[in-house]
């Protein structure tokens, strides 16, 4: 069995990001759970504005499910998508921009294999972030007066994986196709911001409702704690993520690998005379 060298290298590069994102989420999860009992009574009287209700779906803000939807489930994907875009664009476009791709691909490893190992590493990193997040629930829920099923919380945490991977592989594909890390980051961030607001505003503005389906966030189970796990929406995201992953592999397989700059070794003996020919980065 050949060693998964690119997979482990990519995972190694992501290890601190995984740790900090995971630890941050775990801390926030524990914090919102711990403060719940002291806010419960006030929450019951709290008249939630319509604009905010759009953000948390149909949840009843006073219930543990509604409260955790508003205070956790609703915003987590916004943060994980940032991780996704960074990891996705650095996977191929970043390596190319750094100039290290030449040396990797000069080894007997196919481009498909390299891309697939990177995809697998991002998948594992994303799952690892949610796994660390679950430590936040485990370390708080049993010790606090809150009536919620731990398994539901685990499911809700894992539920950010498909939306995160959708953006990660979209970013990877954009980076492979363009191939320009900054450009890819800009475009996918634009798509994420637009998608998020279209989906959010569609709940308030009727005109936008018919186009909400075009936003990946539409398929994120915002109401997973109140209405349960939605298999079809999840499958839609998994399909989208898989499509982007395949697209990333295919565009990476097809095209030329860019070079970072022209040769920067000037002749030490003499200058090469050149006759009006533009020097190219080839």
């Amino acid at each position, binding site marked *: 069995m*050949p*060693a998964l*060298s*690119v997979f482990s*290298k990519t995972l190694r590069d992501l290890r601190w990001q995984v740790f900090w994102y995971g630890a941050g989420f775990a801390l926030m999860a524990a914090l919102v759970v711990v403060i719940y009992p002291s806010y419960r009574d006030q929450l019951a009287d709290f008249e939630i504005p319509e604009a905010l209700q759009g953000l948390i779906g149909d949840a009843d803000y006073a219930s543990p499910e509604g409260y955790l939807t508003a205070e956790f489930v609703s915003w987590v994907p916004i943060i994980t998508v940032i991780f996704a875009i960074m990891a996705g664009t650095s996977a191929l476009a970043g390596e190319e921009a*750094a*100039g*290290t791709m*030449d*040396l*990797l*691909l*000069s*080894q*007997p*490893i*196919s481009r498909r294999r390299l891309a697939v190992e990177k995809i697998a590493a991002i998948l594992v990193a994303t799952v690892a972030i949610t796994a660390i997040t679950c430590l936040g629930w485990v370390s708080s829920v049993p010790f606090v007066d809150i009536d919620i099923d731990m398994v539901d919380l685990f499911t809700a945490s894992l539920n950010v994986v498909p939306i995160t991977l959708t953006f990660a592989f979209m970013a990877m594909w954009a980076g492979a196709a363009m191939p320009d890390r900054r450009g890819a980051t800009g475009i996918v961030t634009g798509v994420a911001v637009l998608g998020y607001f279209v989906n959010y505003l569609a709940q308030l503005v009727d005109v936008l409702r018919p186009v909400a389906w075009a936003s990946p966030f539409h398929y994120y189970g915002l109401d997973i704690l109140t209405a349960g796990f939605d298999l079809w929406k999840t499958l839609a995201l998994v399909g989208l993520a898989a499509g982007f992953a395949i697209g990333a592999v295919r565009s990476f397989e097809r095209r*030329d*690998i860019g*070079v*970072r*700059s*022209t*040769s*920067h*070794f*000037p*002749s*030490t*003996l*003499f200058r*090469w*005379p*050149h*006759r009006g*020919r*533009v*020097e*190219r980065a*080839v």
Partner: protein
Amino acid sequence: MKSAAIELVDVSKKYGSVLALDRVSFVVPPGEICGFLGPNGAGKTTAIRILFDLIRPSGGKATVLGFDCQTDGLEARQQMGYLPGDLRLYENLTGSQLLRLFASLRGQRAVPEFGWDLCERLMLNPDEKIGSLSKGNKQKVGLILALTPRPQVLVLDEPTSGLDPLVQEEVERVLWELAGAGHTIFFSSHVLSEVERMCQRVVIIRNGRVVAQEDVAGLRGRSLHILEVTFSHPVPGDAFRLPGVQELRRDGNVVHLQVRSNLDAAVKAIACYPVVDLRTEQPSLEEVFLAFYRDEESQADRGAALASA
């Protein structure tokens, strides 16, 4: 028949409307050290990157040990080692971590002993982070990564760039040893004295076309002559204004001439005056090169000159 170590047949590469390589063909026989020369932007790196399938040719075919670099790239690269001209390494790893990573990319469980030997011979501490190494030491790491698997075909883009003379010498020794053991080494360089010392053959490329591929000795001897002629009395200033002949300098009755291609015209012109002495010097590769690149003749003329040489 034993297949060539490296063979390019009519390889072209177009970037939009710019032709970076124009039907480039050359052969590097197995077991040879072959230099790859040309000015910046001539297409050396483009040709080398096609060998590793980093870029795809617009036409033609490149093979290494009989494996098509594009369709059988994995098999080809299994036999190849590469030092990129614009070397970039993972700055956050140490040399030994990099060696392990590259061994595992080749499906090896451990770094071959040769890799650690090379670290010692090139005086590299493999436990330092790449990011903290000087340019020369990074170059050593790149070289060690390319040489460690002892590949059949080594392609090195400017291997001794940035190295101090002692290490350069050691690198040359290692390359000689590998060539002696039957490995093929194809390297580009701007240091012509090094090419002259190391290579049996050279491939010269200019503006995306191969302008010469032959023995270093043959190239030196046949394509350029340096003549020092002593006449019994001064000769007219325009006596040697002939195509392919350049008067380098004149000290009284002694005239120094540089002649490209064959000597016929120059000898006939010299014979018109009383000659006391005539010496020929072997030109250095550098002089051959300057003659190749400095003159204003069209490429067609140059091709014809070479063909008749």
